[in-house]
């Protein structure tokens, strides 16, 4: 049965995710960052669904496991498309949207195929492991793509400050999850400790996006090169 701390994080997460959407509506940027907001709408629905299944079937049940891992894979895919939508915003003026969409679909299909190939060789429980491995691989692909996007943003003279904060917070989120998956693969006994941090870090993404939508004016621009780590030593 979920405890009071678990419910507190669930309520906080739901509040922050709703805050992102409300801020986007108030700032009139809901359409501009539609996929990001779609992800923020899906997150609380999935969280409440998980809590419902957990309370009904228990943590060890097959129902809960399937629900958890498949909804996690679904959320990761939506987050992947959120990242692609940030690519579309950054490269809007270059008119390469069609190629970006095709490339993103090809990369997603390639990652799914790779995951299936790995899982089918090493496990008999293909259905559960596929969803888990797909999420794990997509987090790493997402991290690499975010890094590439940040490298591209660094080459630009002026970029909307809001977009910079969205990209960087997504990078922090992806790198934390990629690191946590890798750490638990290396030391499975650390899973219980890492799993405590996951919902807390999960709250940081909506918090930083809400801050970017609420505090940073739509028209504010920053010079990304001045923010980079390389600028530290200059």
């Amino acid at each position, binding site marked *: 049965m979920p405890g009071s701390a678990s419910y507190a994080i669930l309520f906080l997460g739901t509040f922050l995710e709703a805050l992102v959407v409300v801020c986007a509506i108030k700032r009139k940027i809901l359409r501009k960052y539609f996929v990001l907001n779609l992800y923020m709408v899906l997150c609380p629905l999935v969280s409440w669904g998980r809590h419902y299944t957990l309370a009904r079937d228990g943590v060890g049940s097959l129902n809960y496991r399937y629900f958890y891992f498949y909804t996690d894979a679904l959320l990761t895919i939506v987050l992947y498309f959120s990242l692609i939508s940030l690519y579309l915003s950054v490269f809007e003026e270059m008119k390469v949207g069609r190629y970006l969409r095709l490339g993103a679909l090809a990369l997603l299909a390639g990652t799914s195929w790779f995951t299936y190939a790995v899982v089918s060789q090493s496990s008999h429980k293909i259905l559960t492991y596929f969803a888990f491995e797909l999420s794990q691989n997509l987090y790493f692909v997402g991290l690499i793509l975010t890094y590439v996007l940040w490298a591209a943003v660094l080459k630009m003279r002026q970029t909307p400050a809001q977009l910079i904060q969205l990209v960087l917070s997504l990078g922090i989120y992806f790198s934390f999850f990629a690191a946590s*998956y890798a750490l638990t*693969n290396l030391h499975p006994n650390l899973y219980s400790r890492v799993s405590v941090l996951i919902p807390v870090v999960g709250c940081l993404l909506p918090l930083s996006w809400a801050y970017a939508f609420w505090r940073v004016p739509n028209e504010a621009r920053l010079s990304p090169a001045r923010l980079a*780590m390389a600028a530290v030593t200059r």
Partner: protein
Amino acid sequence: MIAAIVLGCSIVFFLQFFVPYCRSLIAASSNHVLSPEVRDVTGLTTPASGEDFQRVVQLLHLCPDRPEDRGEIRAIGVYFGMVNFLKTVSRSTAPSVRAWTERELGRCTYFAAVALDRRVAFSRDLLAQQIEA
């Protein structure tokens, strides 16, 4: 082996994102002009000094909490700790890095003062609304 490489890359990428993120938060607040009250209370000099950071954060904790800036203040606190560590390490080895760390610590203090200014303004609005009601 692959997991170790992924872990190493993730930590490097994390720092590559975290540092610019904190700097973007600081840059976004650097244009904010502090109110005379906050300037008086904090006693900030121009440019702000890193030595005042802890004091400004203590004042910040006296104000009513706002969920939307809590994460950012915490992130800047972690960034401040990292830069402060770099300052200690570079004390004798790299004077140019030390000068940069001092500037950066001062900017962290200014960020905290801006957050304080916003919280004071928020509390004042809240109080005004309660009096009107």
